[in-house]
């Protein structure tokens, strides 16, 4: 099962490597990992997308909690939540394809950020499925380069992850 885990940790040197090291040492999967400071600059928020059996996910959460730098965490997958990822994709755009690509971009509510005779750079935001669907629609022959941010997420409603 795929899980999205949000982690609040002390914003200090080496904090990221503690988490990355934990995952590699114990053989856990990381699909994506994003990290940036929060409104409280002493705290970083990390979003980890991982997969595993329920038992592995339970261990991941316990092992993360055990890290002395981790202040709090939440498995977003346990609650209604919003997940977003940003993707910058450079696509081939020539002849008739230019119009078609523009239309697809509109359908997916993307933005064209850069235009040349032969290419567009498109910005797209959404969850994993939407971004993948867009790439499928464009077709791999037309995709020149893809840069994805990895997912970040937040719970819906009143529930919040705060120290």
């Amino acid at each position, binding site marked *: 099962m795929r899980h999205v885990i949000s982690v609040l940790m002390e914003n200090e040197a080496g904090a990221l490597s503690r988490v990355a090291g934990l995952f590699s040492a114990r053989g856990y999967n990381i699909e994506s990992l994003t990290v940036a400071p929060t409104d409280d600059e002493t705290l970083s928020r990390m979003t980890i997308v991982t997969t595993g059996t329920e038992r592995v996910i339970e261990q991941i959460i316990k092992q993360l909690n055990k890290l*002395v730098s981790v202040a709090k965490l939440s498995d977003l997958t346990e609650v209604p939540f919003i997940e977003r990822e940003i993707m910058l994709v450079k696509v081939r755009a020539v002849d008739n394809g230019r119009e078609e690509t523009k239309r697809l971009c509109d359908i997916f509510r993307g933005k064209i950020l850069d235009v040349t005779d032969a290419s567009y750079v498109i910005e797209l935001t959404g969850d994993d499925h939407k971004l993948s669907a867009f790439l499928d629609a464009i077709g791999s022959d037309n995709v020149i380069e893809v840069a994805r941010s990895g997912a970040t997420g937040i719970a819906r409603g009143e529930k919040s992850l705060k120290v």
Partner: protein
Amino acid sequence: MELSGGKVLMEALKEEGVELIFGYPGGAVLHIYDALYQQNSVKHILVRHEQSATHAADGYARATGKPGVVLVTSGPGATNAVTGIATAFMDSVPMIVISGQVQSRFIGSDAFQEVDCVGITRPCVKHNFLVDSLENMAQTIKEAFHVATTGRPGPVVIDIPKDFTTPGITVPFDYSKTVEMRSYSPPTQGHPGQIRKAVDLILSAKKPMIYSGGGVVLGNASEQLRAFTRELGYPITQTLMGLGAYPASDKQFIGMLGMHGTYEANLAMHECDVLIAIGARFDDRVTGEVDSFCPNAKIVHVDIDPASISKNVTVDVPIVGDVALVLDAMLEQIRASERRADPADIASWWSQIKAWQATKCMEYELSDTLIKPQAVVEALWRETKGQAYITSDVGQHQMWAAQYYGFDEPNRWINSGGLGTMGFGLPAALGVALGKPDDTVACITGEASIQMCIQELSTCLQYGTPIKIINLNNRYMGMVRQWQEFSYEKRYSHSYMDALPDFVKLAESYGHVGMNIENPADVESALAEAFAMKDRLVFMNFVTDQSENVYPMIEAGKGHHEMRLNPARELA
């Protein structure tokens, strides 16, 4: 009070009540060693290799319950310490390792004796710190001691760049009495609902089994475990790390469990219907094949580390908390309750266990010509009246020590159970002897293990630690040889110890007493002679039977009910 960084460290150690540190000087810690020289409250023990500093601090910590403190230099000083740090980490021993680091402005430049100490030690510490300024040093030390000694204990590394300890550069020294860490709050009390559920289950058992581990020793919960076990009258087994928490001489104790556990303990594990796991972590050497582990049991698991629960074996009633507090709470409920397990069930369970005990799985054949290693351990127990602090290295001798030296008190059995570090025994004994100067300390070792840190014989002379070394010399890496005999058709690949030193002369050249014992008839008298030399280190080289194996044994992939017994017992 304005102090330099070196003096801040010394004052902080004093505030933490540190009396002894184990270390080895070098460039990056010269300022610290200078501060050490100018004070009297902290005594420094100069080891001969940094690995030994960590093992000695480890032994000291396990025997005294106080954190062990280590001081090493940057680069090779830090890397040499890693094995000992990992050893302490696997066995959850409270330890502070202070490592020097190159000057902060040189970090990352591949400077002389620079390694990323925080990076290298990260996977084998409870936590580590790179001190980022002189101003924050005292607070960092405070936090390090707090983390190392609370919750599930463990080693904590403090890496200090040399420029923060420069004499003449000072800060006001203020050591706070309390510590607040928003991201670290170890559990204490168990959840009352879970405790109620556990007590219900415990009192409804027909074939109950108590399985306790090193957490009881580390959590100072031996008294509570004894009271709990006696109140219930249930059988108890202990892990390698838990020995002594419950007295080996008590009738309810049915021996160690696991790979080299007793027949009765392992079969009782296999047959029990309620398993009460206390401060134990279901290590693979204990469980055997997990799929056939305690197939009929509901499991209660008490542990201070939530990550230990349902890691290897899924449990039914987990209780996260300090073992002493949880045992107190459970015992209080049991005593307040009218309910008890059906005495007829418990009596018939005990008669089953007694039938298993009749196998006498720990008996071994004596010989008139060859010294049996088990007999040496039993003779050592008699000579020391079972009251010595025993350290060991790793291998057959370690198992024989665990099996045949019946520990009646906690903190007396000091071995590297988790990491299995050969070379641990002698430096650990050094640490124990310094922490417990009035007690008898013996190191049970083998001729392979002892050579891994043998240079500490020199340290032992310098500080006059009268350790008794029991070298069970079978001219093999015995446990490797045993596995090769059982699983590799006796192809003894590189397990033979050729070109051994003359241990008697070796001990003498280090200024100690050496003894060579080759005749079984001399074992008792030699031990008596050695232990009569109260102020001398005596290196006793027992030339033992090369073919002796550790029994019972659960081989890889097998369950508790599939033990291999001593062939002599199988015939009996």
